[in-house]
């Protein structure tokens, strides 16, 4: 076992055992960490689309909202078990993302804002289709995560284990794609799409796959959130915050790295809630804005690469 793997094993152990052991009794801290990890989950999905697919999205709330409503409705109306409904919600988010395929032809800001338009459209549809979604009133009393192997996944520590596992799976999947030939081809497509196509790469298809994968991840995270907060309404489920915060987190941590989005999300969320909020009770998000602007100006690759460079 080399040093890197050893470090990784220690980190994994600490994540799974140490965190719940230390903070397990403190619902507040666990709650904050879970909220931060939810943002981290979307941030990974966003970074995957941004880094591998080369597409910046301003509307990941669309997938998040669809995933959360899908899982809530599957469990409430059809009586599906929560743990089955969650992956299904991811697939339904993929289904909805298929409606965005025409947007893949668009570049840069056009794609970003087209996805934002989708998020708005989905929000309005969720409000208008009240026979299914109960409209603006929203859904309450959504089932919580079940008890599995004697662990109450609905408890704070249990939910923590679920979200950590989801994140680990996402990162593993992301790492695999990135290392594969698909990842190499995707990397090549950013600045040289035509050159990549004429050697046989179906660039649109690859991008579509990244969109699907990103939508799936975000949908599953949305479903997880629905079952932990037990409540949904269109303005909340499709709220701009689900699009914005993960972007800030991913950029902050370094969106081209695997762990950057997670570290970014933890930093941003915890600093904001524990520090900025006590310094500036109203409008503390101004500090987030300042932080983001400073990062882009002075460390555009994010925190993680900055840190690595210093220690290289």
């Amino acid at each position: 076992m080399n040093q890197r793997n050893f470090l990784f094993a220690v980190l994994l152990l600490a994540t799974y055992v140490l965190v719940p052991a230390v903070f397990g009794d403190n619902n507040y801290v666990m709650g904050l960490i879970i909220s931060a990890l939810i943002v981290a989950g979307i941030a990974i999905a966003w970074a995957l689309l941004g880094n591998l697919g080369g597409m910046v999205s301003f509307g990941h709330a669309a997938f998040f909202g669809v995933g959360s409503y899908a899982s809530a409705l599957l469990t409430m109306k059809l009586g599906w078990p929560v743990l089955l409904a969650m992956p299904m919600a991811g697939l339904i988010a993929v289904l909805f993302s298929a409606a965005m395929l025409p947007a893949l032809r668009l570049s840069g800001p056009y794609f970003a804002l087209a996805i934002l338009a989708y998020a708005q459209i989905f929000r309005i549809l969720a409000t208008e289709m009240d026979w299914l979604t109960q409209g603006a009133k929203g859904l309450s009393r959504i089932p919580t995560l079940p008890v599995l192997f004697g662990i109450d996944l609905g408890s704070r520590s249990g939910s923590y284990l679920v979200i950590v596992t989801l994140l680990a799976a996402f990162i593993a999947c992301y790492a695999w794609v990135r290392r594969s030939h698909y990842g190499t081809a995707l990397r090549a497509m950013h600045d040289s799409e035509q050159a990549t196509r004429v050697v046989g790469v179906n660039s649109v298809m690859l991008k579509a796959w990244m969109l699907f994968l990103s939508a799936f991840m975000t949908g599953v995270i949305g479903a997880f959130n629905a079952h932990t907060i037990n409540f949904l309404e269109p303005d909340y489920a499709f709220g701009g915050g689900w699009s914005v915060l993960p972007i800030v987190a991913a950029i902050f941590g370094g969106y081209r790295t695997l762990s950057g989005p997670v570290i970014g999300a933890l930093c941003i969320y915890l600093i904001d809630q524990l520090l900025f909020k006590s310094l500036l009770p109203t409008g503390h998000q101004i500090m987030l804005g300042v932080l983001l602007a400073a990062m882009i100006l002075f460390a555009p690759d994010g925190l993680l690469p900055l840190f690595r460079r210093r220690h290289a």
Partner: protein
Amino acid sequence: MLELANVTVQFGGLSAVKDVSLRMGSDEMVGLVGPNGAGKTTLFNVISGLVKPIHGRVLFDGVDVMHEPDYKRARLGLGRTFQIPQPMHELTVRENLVVAQRFGAGRVDAARIDEILELLQLTEQAGRDAATGLALQELKRLEVAKALATEPKLLLLDEVLAGLETQGKRLFMEKLREVHARYRIGILIIEHDIETISSLCPRVVVLDFGQIIADGTPQQVFNDPAVIRSYTGVEHA
């Protein structure tokens, strides 16, 4: 193996290629010549699927590929290079070839990649960043290497020899002959220099104003009065 039938391309009302028909066999090496703006590159773009003709057909290996997108044509065996080299950015030279092989040929074969690198004298540069770490000559060789890695049946080379000094050009020509012989593939090559093309290709096609004005051995073609007129520009002056 390649057959163009009555291909016509228009850009904003102007015909770039007019009613071009052409056949070439699987082991031929054909030169495509003509003055600037004659439609040579446009013809390449039609063959490789980057430009849609307003009418006409492209058959490859007896199959109509008109409705196949560019990447599928690459997989079918149509490899091409660009006049201005287009390496795949953010990738090393070797990765360029790996992607081309994996997606163009549908398989991974490191030995063959080594062989191509060796053949095009890129072994030393294999680990360099393709977009930023290569000189122009190396970039041109990488263009050919990438196309070869897709294991094509027909190679479309767009001015790969232009801009090279005499020594480099002779070397490259040898490489092309070697490629042609070793992999038994057809080559259609755009080249300006009459001398070069005459020594390289047993058959030459001349394009002017989007139309084929001559097709034959270099001897026949370059003695054709129409070709001479177009080359000396008598009519255009």
